[in-house]
């Protein structure tokens, strides 16, 4: 009975805190994406910038580690039994990637474009009590080459 009460409290806490943090994060992401929208970040090696106009280029990167709440982890655990799309992890990955790209852009102040952008994800920590891996934190790293133009 005590276990059940603890479990249900954690579920409620996880749901409330998790969805609050998620809404807040999405608001912040949307606002910063609008702010950075004119800095192109593309996967191609060039972004319509003539080679002669580039002054210098260097590596920029951004990373973000996002954790999932108790409620969503429980839901994912249930999903593991039956298989199918793990919807409760979707926002986790989405937020981590977009946050990483935004931080990469913040690293490239004054650049004309970021080219060759790559995004990678990996799980952090998450060694369960039995030593097996259970996803708890997700890290997304975004990196690319920032191009800075010559002064005219």
């Amino acid at each position, binding site marked *: 009975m005590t276990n*059940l009460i*603890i479990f249900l409290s954690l579920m409620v806490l996880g749901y409330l805190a998790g969805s609050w943090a998620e809404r807040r994060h999405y608001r912040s992401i949307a606002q910063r994406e609008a702010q950075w929208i004119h800095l192109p970040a593309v996967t191609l090696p060039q972004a319509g910038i003539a080679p002669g106009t580039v002054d210098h280029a260097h590596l920029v990167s951004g990373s973000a580690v996002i954790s999932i709440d108790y409620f969503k982890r429980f839901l994912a655990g249930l999903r593991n039994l039956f298989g199918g799309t793990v919807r409760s992890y979707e926002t986790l990955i989405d937020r981590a990637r977009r946050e990483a790209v935004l931080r990469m852009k913040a690293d490239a102040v004054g650049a004309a474009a970021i080219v060759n952008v790559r995004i990678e994800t990996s799980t952090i920590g998450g060694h369960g009590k039995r030593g097996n891996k259970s996803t708890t934190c997700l890290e997304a790293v975004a990196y690319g080459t920032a191009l800075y133009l010559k002064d005219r």
Partner: protein
Amino acid sequence: MKYTPRQGETNFNVSPSSIWRELFVLLAGLLAILAGLYLVMGLVVDLVAERLSPEFEARLGAAVSPRFHVVGQDDSRQRCLQQLADRIQDRCVHLPYHFKVQLVEDPRINAFALPGGIIMVLTGLLDRVETENELAFILGHEMGHFANRDHLRRMGRTLVLLAVVTIVFGPDSSLNNLVTGAMGLAELGFSRQQETAADQFGLKVLKCFYGNSCGADDFFAKIPKESDPGRFGHYFSSHPENRRRISHLRSLSSSDCRPEILKPLPECIVKGK
């Protein structure tokens, strides 16, 4: 190639469907699986319970009983209780067990049947008993659980279910905690039918031992004021609510029960002697 800045209107990476709906569907699936397992296992356990030998049972009982704070064998009330049980068994109960009554120091009003013919009587119950007939009925009731093998069925179901849940979810997952919590609630004791059958066995024992079945309902008539589960409690306590139980016992027991035909409690069981 021209770069066009664009901010997506829709987020295609996140499903729009409700998380609560997903939770509901998944939990329903889980419950359906568990219910199926439970039904199948119930049948298997019933089959096994009827075939276990009393010797094997005694070993199971030995594994379970040390958890209780048992009153020593040389306690006079304990010995007296054992003598009463022996007399009842010699004359009226023909089962392949040698019933061993153990008095447990505990203020709660209860008695249990444990594997191996062990009947645990809590002192809280013994202190409230007033006639030998009441006590004989309680012992007869517990013997009835052995006659119907209820104690093995209950233990078997709880064990197998725990085992399956542990295999499916692992020893310490949050799912496991949820399921064991819920199961503990559902498997708290014997079912209502089992209790009623044991009551009937107890009545038969009384009838055989004293020639009448008086005193059976006396004990339960005393309980309501103190620990009647009431309207909400009956789910949590598996014994049928006392009022229902009393009326059922009354309808089955002898009609003319004058107080003089009840036997007084043996001297050695009365508290403080």
